[in-house]
């Protein structure tokens, strides 16, 4: 389970890996929050989300877009993402802390998740996806 930032001049391109799809989605959430806020600790904030889409790629975009919405309107920063995928239906428990400008200002706003080149690929050791975050 990992994410790496790849070269992209305009936006942020992340390669995300997970042994399972659940891990892949969890790691994609972590990757996005690392862009937005930098370090985060679990401090009692817990939130559940449920999403359904017609395919896995759209589900990933909808899930990340939902995280963007929740973090912004609820002023929360999430660090762990317990994802449970059933087909193209997702429920996730998000844990983190309230947004604190003093500690969470090292990142930048993610404006959206791009569909460009987004494809979840099954490899021998798990799954990989490259995601462009518009910043």
């Amino acid at each position: 389970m990992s994410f790496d930032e790849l070269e992209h001049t305009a936006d942020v391109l992340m390669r995300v890996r997970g042994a399972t799809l659940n891990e892949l989605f969890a790691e994609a959430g972590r990757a996005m929050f690392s862009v937005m806020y930098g370090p985060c600790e679990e401090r009692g904030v817990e939130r559940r989300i449920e999403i359904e889409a017609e395919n896995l790629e759209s589900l990933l975009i909808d899930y990340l877009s939902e995280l963007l919405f929740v973090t912004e309107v609820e002023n929360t920063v999430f660090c762990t993402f317990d994802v449970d995928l059933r087909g193209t239906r997702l429920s996730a428990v998000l844990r983190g802390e309230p947004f604190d400008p003093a500690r969470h200002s090292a990142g930048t706003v993610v404006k959206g998740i791009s569909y460009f080149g987004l494809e979840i690929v099954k490899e021998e050791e798990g799954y990989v996806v490259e995601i462009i975050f518009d910043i």
Partner: protein
Amino acid sequence: MLTGINKIGDLEWEVPIGYVPDMRVPGRFFLSRTLAETLEEGAVRQLANVATLPGIVKHSLAMPDIHWGYGFPIGGVAAFDMTEGVISPGGVGFDINCGVRLITTPLTEADLARRKRELIERLFDAVPTGVGAKSALRVSNKDLSAVMVDGARWAVERGLGTEADLVRCEGEGAMPGADPDAVSAKARQRGVPQLGTLGAGNHFLEVQVAKEIVDPEAAKTFGIAEGQVCFMVHCGSRGLGHQVATDHLRTLEGAVAKYGIRLPDRQLACAPLDSPEGRAYYGGMVCAANYAWANRQVIMHEARKVFAHLFGIDYDEMQLIYDVAHNVAKFERHDVDGVSTEVCVHRKGATRAFGPGAEGVPSEYAAIGQPVIIPGSMGTSSYLLHGTTAAMQKTWGSTCHGAGRVLSRSKAKKEVRGKELRERLAGEGIVVRAHSDTALAEEAPAVYKPSQEVVRVVHEAGLSHIVARLEPLGVIKG
């Protein structure tokens, strides 16, 4: 230079039909040899992909700040036929009506001398910036509906500006056709607390001095003189716009199959202009664009108050020169093969640059053409230009929008240290205030193409002409 591209003029290049399959028209872009060295193949492919969209008229275009984005390249411009054509959020971007405004003050650099740091600190206190920034304005859901329809006028009617400000905005600070029903509850929730906030990334409020007047006649008309202190606001429609783009991209994804459109890139999801999905996106996009004009109006108002209080000058002595959008799709009349025709012009990281006498240019600027504002990267020159007749003929009245990045964010963080950058700029007399030094590194001048080269190309290609060069004195960033 990349292969498969033809040079057709000193600064003009053509991407022939066939560069990617299914192109309906050729691509055209404007670039000097120096800028061509950093041109990415991916950006040219994106330019060519746009040429495959139904109803595209004449060319898929890109300005000299072309670079690799998603959907359209950044710097991309394309016009679509109103009957056969499509509208695409990928041709506008997530930050709907990201734009720039430039305001003059009666002050000179000497007036600021010992109080520059204080000015920047006060501006930083007055204008919420950065991730998580919330506005001091109390906006109700009903207010938000009015903002989305009336744009900058909403703010002016509440005393946050003057009637004169409205005349000096592209489209008088609002586009017609807003459809608040096409804006989701989620977008509204994000929009309510953020009106009057700058945001993060490359958004900024910068105090500048007009260092060089290149075109004295145009400068006089625009009301700017050498040595004059100005300020520039660069931001967009915040979370509301991002959510409108996200929501409609999703709907339009479904529309692609429904209307039998073949796409080379999912990010180019679109629908016919004359379809329920296309109309809904347009109506929602207009709401976000109008929100952005109100947003910049509120920020300008707060900055004016800071200047007035600190330097004892009148609010009315700070004149808005103009406000331009650089991420938007608009219905405009243009000459198509000798016939004045309405088309839907998408500009993604490109600025409208209407020439003398064009419809939509404020009457006081009609003889010169509209002001065009090109922000530099942090610590580098910004430019005031004017639109031209050549732009009307070649680029649907469009020009560049900024410098264009050359270095990724990850490389920038490796090569530039925010603290050192802040100190170096301070050594050059530029005061930088941001929430974090890390965020500064990502926006360092070295990560952008030199703005003067991009501006030189649009000037020499005739797409807009330089009026004045502005240099930074201080900046607040997210």
